[in-house]
């Protein structure tokens, strides 16, 4: 074996590649089981709990945590905050991969992937919120794909088509914000149909507003969190501009997230007051609700505020992780934990091992795809030929 071949094999069998390879291999086996034996063979879903982990985590959390795309691009291109420009491409890429994996994961839950385009092109259920969500996700995924292409065109050297796509940036950004406003809120509105199933502390006539507002700070926190991971593992791929702007992005986004989170706490309290649900706060469910609201929204909001005042980026990065966990907890509370809360424990849903594994499988695909793109295309650095373009 020559030394070059030995180096190539050594790089190929890194710990990351081996672990990712094993997860993807097992995930593919479960995928075959899902599509040959049916959804009942791999999940614990039943008539009481038709939506499980794949909807609660993969879809609801995936969409909310992908909100960094519209938040960052609107900050940069609509509000003119060009100091955040270096964060746009990583955020758009994360959002694109997030939405693509949401659609991918949806196939596991819905089944029959070849019928996925039916609601859009064949049989539109225009009175259904799910149709609105499906249409928005379809359109927004297309928008995100187009927004991601300039990096690919720069990598491939397609100058002319890249030039035309870049000219569409503002239009795409506005379109993306409109679509995100619609479907982020609609995902919450889906649960308005089940007032008798969702616990009163989580159920509210403002549920769609909660989902939309929380997606804002979820997106901002995810940009900070993803930037933290990129700085740790892909530092060598970043150029001087990206490194110089990184702290400004963390401080600015942390401050914005803190303000929005305080507003969110406020409207959650309004929701309790409007429905006069104060008495539930003294129950076990009330304690759990307070853990979510105080422990995973108010507390990280205070961490963000202290971090941005003291210019302490480490504190802000901790707050970002905390907030991301809080969003996951909120979406799981609404869709799984506080859903069917009145059922006896024997009838409650808990995901099967294979449901958990498919979720891990999908996250792994996202990480591998992100790594593939970032190590090849100008995402964390500016292509030398296009530095003067903005």
């Amino acid at each position, binding site marked *: 074996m020559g030394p070059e071949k030995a180096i190539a094999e050594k790089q190929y069998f890194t710990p990351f590649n081996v672990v990712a390879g094993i997860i993807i291999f097992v995930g593919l086996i479960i995928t075959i089981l899902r599509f040959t034996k049916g959804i009942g063979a791999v999940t614990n879903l039943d008539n009481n709990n038709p939506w499980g982990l794949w909807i609660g985590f993969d879809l609801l959390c995936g969409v909310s945590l992908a909100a960094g795309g519209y938040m960052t691009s609107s900050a940069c291109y609509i509000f003119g905050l060009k100091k955040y420009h270096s964060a746009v491409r990583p955020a758009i890429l994360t959002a694109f991969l997030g939405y693509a994996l949401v659609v991918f994961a949806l196939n596991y839950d819905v089944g029959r992937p070849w019928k996925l385009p039916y609601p859009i092109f064949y049989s539109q259920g225009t009175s259904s919120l799910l149709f609105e969500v499906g249409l928005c996700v379809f359109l927004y995924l297309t928008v995100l794909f187009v927004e991601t292409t300039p990096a690919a065109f720069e990598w491939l050297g397609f100058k002319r088509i890249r030039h035309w796509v870049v000219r569409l940036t503002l239009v795409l950004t506005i379109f993306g914000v409109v679509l995100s406003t619609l479907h982020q809120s609609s995902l919450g509105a889906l649960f308005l149909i089940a007032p008798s199933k969702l616990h009163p502390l989580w159920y509210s006539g403002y549920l769609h507003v909660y989902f939309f507002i929380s997606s804002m700070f979820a997106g901002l926190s995810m940009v900070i969190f993803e930037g933290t991971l990129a700085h740790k593992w892909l530092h060598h791929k970043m150029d001087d501009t990206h490194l110089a702007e990184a702290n400004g992005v963390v401080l600015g986004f942390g*401050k914005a997230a*803190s*303000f929005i989170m*305080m*507003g969110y706490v*406020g409207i959650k*309290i*309004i929701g309790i*007051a*409007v*429905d*006069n649900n104060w008495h539930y706060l003294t129950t076990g469910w009330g304690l759990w609700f307070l853990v979510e609201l105080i422990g995973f929204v108010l507390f990280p909001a205070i961490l963000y*505020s202290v971090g*941005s*005042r003291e210019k302490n980026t480490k504190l802000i990065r901790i707050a970002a992780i905390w907030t991301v966990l809080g969003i996951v907890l909120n979406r799981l509370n609404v869709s799984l934990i506080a859903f069917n809360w009145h059922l006896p424990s024997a009838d409650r849903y808990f995901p099967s091992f294979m449901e958990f594994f498919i979720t891990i499988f999908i996250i792994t695909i996202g990480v591998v795809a992100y790594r593939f793109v970032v190590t090849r295309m100008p995402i964390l650095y500016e292509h030398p030929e296009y530095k003067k373009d903005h």
Partner: protein
Amino acid sequence: MEFFTLHDFMTYSKGITYLVMGAILVFMPLYWLYLTDRDD
């Protein structure tokens, strides 16, 4: 608190809601000042 009519309930819950909203309207600008007072 006991309610006998919908009107009782609405009066009570909306009254509390307006108080909460007033408190938020006062709090949020102050919080913004707290967040930004050390900006350059």
